[in-house]
């Protein structure tokens, strides 16, 4: 494999891993909050978290660009105070992937958390655990398969992210280009054989991931059936 291609694959996987790591803890905490009833603003948070799933990724990318660009409120502030540039850097790729994949993690983790018998959580409370300790010691461990499946889905979504990435991070070979954006670029410049190879690699990675999720889910059904 030529070293440039290898670097492209490695960068894409790294970005997906970083974005998954970035959303894992906040995503699970949001899922937990959404699985608990009776607090104001829950519907609003739920809508906000789901939004990136239903609007075009390019719209998400545009919003991120306006926010993180050198003139945007967040990007401008980061530039002035810390001297950081976000837009059109690898960090922007990670952020774009994170925002777009967050809903998948949250939804999967939430449904796994909601499957846990609330009685078990009640028992933990009567045994002296506060809500957060109950979450850490009982709720999350009992939903770990679903949380893991959610993380894998988020990872897979990040691997294939295109629309948001292109807008906020561009398609700069060797800097912000991922497998998804590289395929587009190769086709545009007429290097279709290369594009096909990249598509094949993407498909292979995605296939491996989907098989992994399937195995996890099947394990979960077995566990529930016991």
């Amino acid at each position, binding site marked *: 494999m030529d070293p440039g291609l290898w670097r492209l694959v490695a960068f894409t996987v790294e970005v997906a891993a970083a974005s998954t790591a970035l959303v894992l803890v906040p995503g699970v905490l949001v899922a937990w909050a959404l699985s608990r009833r009776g607090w104001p603003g829950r519907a609003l948070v739920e809508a906000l978290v789901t939004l990136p799933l239903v609007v075009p990724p390019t719209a998400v990318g545009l919003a991120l660009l306006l926010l993180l660009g050198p003139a945007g409120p967040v990007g401008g502030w980061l530039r002035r105070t810390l001297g950081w540039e976000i837009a059109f850097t690898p960090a922007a790729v990670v952020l774009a992937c994170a925002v777009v994949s967050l809903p998948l993690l949250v939804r999967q983790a939430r449904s796994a958390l909601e499957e846990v018998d609330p009685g078990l959580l*009640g*028992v933990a409370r*009567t*045994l002296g*655990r506060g809500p957060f300790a109950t979450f850490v010691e*009982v709720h999350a461990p*009992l939903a770990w398969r679903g949380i893991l499946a959610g993380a894998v889905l988020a990872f897979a979504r990040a691997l294939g992210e295109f629309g948001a990435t292109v807008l906020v991070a561009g398609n700069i070979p060797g800097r912000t280009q991922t497998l998804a954006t590289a395929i587009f670029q190769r086709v545009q410049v007429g290097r279709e054989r290369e594009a096909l190879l990249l598509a094949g690699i993407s498909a292979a990675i995605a296939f491996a991931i989907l098989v992994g999720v399937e195995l996890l889910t099947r394990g979960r059904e077995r566990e529930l059936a016991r």
Partner: protein
Amino acid sequence: MLSFDLRLAAGDFELSAAAAVEGPAAVLGPSGAGKTTLLQAIAGLRRAEGTVVLDGEVLQDTARGVRLPPERRRLGWVPQHGLLFPHLSVRRNLLFGRRGRRRAGPPDGGGGPGPGARPGDFDALVEALELAPLLGRYPRSLSGGEARRVALGRALLARPRLLLLDEPTEGLDAERARRALGHVRRAAEVLETPFLVVTHKLDEALALAREVVLLEAGRVVAAGPAGEVLTRRGLPRGPHARRNANVVRGVVARHDPAAGISAVEIEGGGTVLVPYDASLAAGAPAVLAVDAEEVLVSVAEPAGLSARNVVAGEVESVEEYEGSVYVQAGGWTARLTPAAARELGLASGRRVWMAVKSHSWRVVAR
């Protein structure tokens, strides 16, 4: 002493229950009466309005904005099917609450500190509940009865001030249920923990509790000492099939295996003869029950009657209630058809003999 006055609505169901009981106590009611809901509301696991006061400490008083979360109420909860943590071994399930207490320290909710975890508790409880062979196992490999024993131990090791038990024998066959009740009594004794049990089984309530709260359709219809509550007539209509039980407490006096008889001297005087039962140790306490419909009433001194228990007395009251006549005399309550009551001419002051066959008695606790 636990007193509660709680109200909550969930769909069509409305709970509005108030009572004060001293453990060991039982909430007795048919399924759907709201027993589990009441227990969860007391534990703070279900949001209810009103008050919960345990030994003078206010756990909840919503009118004054007080509502301790469950982790600060120090009430042990043993749910119906145990609800063990499936990801933890039996040993770690048992120690779950103890670890939490140590970390959390004494509750800052005021009131009595209550006894903390003592070093011997674990071993004593493992022995009382016969848990030693289970310690290394995981909940999914336990039987229903085993899981409940572990749940009971887990709740007790957290040193609650009051243990709340939800239908401790539901789904167990008679022999296992009897053993389960023995375990509840022994374990609560070992850790000196009072308890409140909810059940729809009269005998279970009697076996475990001295005080009973009758709950029907979300409302308390009677509360007080078991014998009194369960023989009270004129209670509102409800599906208690056996609310008219005669309940006595006593001490096993002697056995006569040849005659097939065991004698129990009952509190307040008198002796009751029951079928010979080797498992009743002489000198041990026993609780006996007989349903009101099993009691015969005679206006002449019975002669040539096989029933072994006959007491004479004057009729204290005759009440017709929902198609039956309840006659009280000599400390017993009999349930008759109106025709039988009319034919005998039963009226207050009339001298009668009340007879009960030995085999009609149920030994509900020993």
